């Protein structure tokens, strides 16, 4: 039994996962970022930068939002070393990584839940309310992806219609915060449950081709209900 992930990414909060999971999650995100940069034809700087952004962006965003001091990813050299190693892998093996797209999707779905719960737990630990904690958790989960897309000059993928990513993180993080705040379940078990929720929603959305939809304008529909001549009460639901 070695150090716990909670010791590495947030001191003091009793999360159950071992320390290496934190580095594994960073590595998975960074490999994805590096392979993305390689595929887009960016140079070696781009591969390194997008690997660092995708792997560490979420935790950097969390630490900037929470202002709890210099980010852990700058203080523990292992985070940067993992991201750099991922950049090297992405630089030379982008083709192989693309072949293993399914494996990366599965690992990425696990990392999404991990970052989400870690972010929410850090927010709760400094006594933030549940609603902001859900926000910080979701931002931690998707921050790497957003930073990667911004640096690559794209609009963030998570905001465009497509398979559930941020939505999956949001559902899982909400589950985590509700379990921690409203039940007696230990935060470590709540984290495992939340990670499984994110994993299930993310993979189900890919498997069953669920897609987030563009915003729908309800004005006309509500107006039609409201101005219907035969309505007999003010509720508009007759």
């Amino acid at each position, binding site marked *: 039994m070695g150090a716990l992930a909670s010791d590495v990414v947030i001191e003091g909060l009793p999360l159950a996962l071992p320390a290496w999971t934190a580095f594994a999650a960073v590595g998975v995100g960074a490999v994805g970022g590096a392979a993305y*940069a*390689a595929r887009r*034809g*960016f*140079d*070696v*700087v*781009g*591969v*390194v*930068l*997008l690997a*660092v952004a995708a792997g560490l962006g979420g935790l*950097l965003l969390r*630490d*900037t939002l929470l*202002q709890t*001091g*210099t*980010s852990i*990813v*700058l*203080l*523990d*050299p292992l985070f*940067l*070393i993992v991201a750099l190693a991922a950049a090297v892998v*992405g*630089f*030379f*093996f*982008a*083709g*192989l990584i693309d*072949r293993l797209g399914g494996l990366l999707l599965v690992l990425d779905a696990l990392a999404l839940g991990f970052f989400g719960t870690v972010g929410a737990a850090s927010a709760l630990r400094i006594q933030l309310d549940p609603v902001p904690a859900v926000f910080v958790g979701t931002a931690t989960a998707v921050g790497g992806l957003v930073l990667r897309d*911004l*640096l*690559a*000059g794209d609009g963030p993928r998570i905001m465009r219609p497509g398979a559930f990513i941020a939505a999956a993180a949001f559902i899982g993080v909400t589950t985590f915060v509700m379990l921690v705040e409203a039940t007696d379940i230990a935060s470590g078990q709540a984290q495992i449950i939340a990670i499984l929720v994110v994993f299930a929603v993310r993979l189900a959305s890919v498997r069953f081709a669920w897609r987030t939809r563009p915003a729908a304008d309800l004005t006309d529909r509500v107006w039609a209900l409201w101005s219907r001549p035969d309505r007999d009460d003010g509720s508009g639901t007759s």
Partner: protein
Amino acid sequence: MSTPVYSLFELPFAIEMTAVSVGALSGALHATRKGLDPVGVFTIAITTSVGGGIIRDVLIQGRVPLFLTIPTYLLIAAFAALVGVAFARLVRAAVPVMSVVDTLLIGVWVVLGAERALYADLPLAGAALLGVLTAAGGGILRDLLCKDVPAIIQPGEWYAAAAIIASLVFVTLVYAGVALEVAELATIAAAAGLRILSLWRGWRTPTAYDVWGDLEARMTATLDSSRQR
């Protein structure tokens, strides 16, 4: 809080201000070339010049970013932006001089980033990253504000690549216990040397090499040729 941070460093403050003004001038030039209005020119000039430092200070946390605590940064940047707006043609004529100075400044930015990170008790790895981000951050923010793909991640001239290697040189020398002045000069020389060498030899920054795809192609080629025999 009120201690003037620059006095703790070996690099003279004048060099940092040169770096800021060259950054602001090149930012202003970039903005006028893009046809932005004066507000845009000022925004891009200031972002290009102090953007790297902002990223560094925000990531280090714990103190207000340096460019807000010492007014000289903004004054110099604004003055350079003003020159850039009012005398765009003159500045354009000075581009060759600016690129020479800029070549020397890559390493200066790296030192300004990495050294302040070390001063804030960051480990060498974090300092190396902040050195690179301080050198490249201004250009990245400039390109993002202009809605371009950042120039430094596209294949082309060595700039950030030189900064990455120079940053590694700096932290290695600091780790080896070399005197700070020596480490600083070596870093500046390494960055400038790499950039000059790459321009001279016409190197472009390398793009990813697909080992797997290459192996596969070779294997199918071998199989094909053996089948033909």
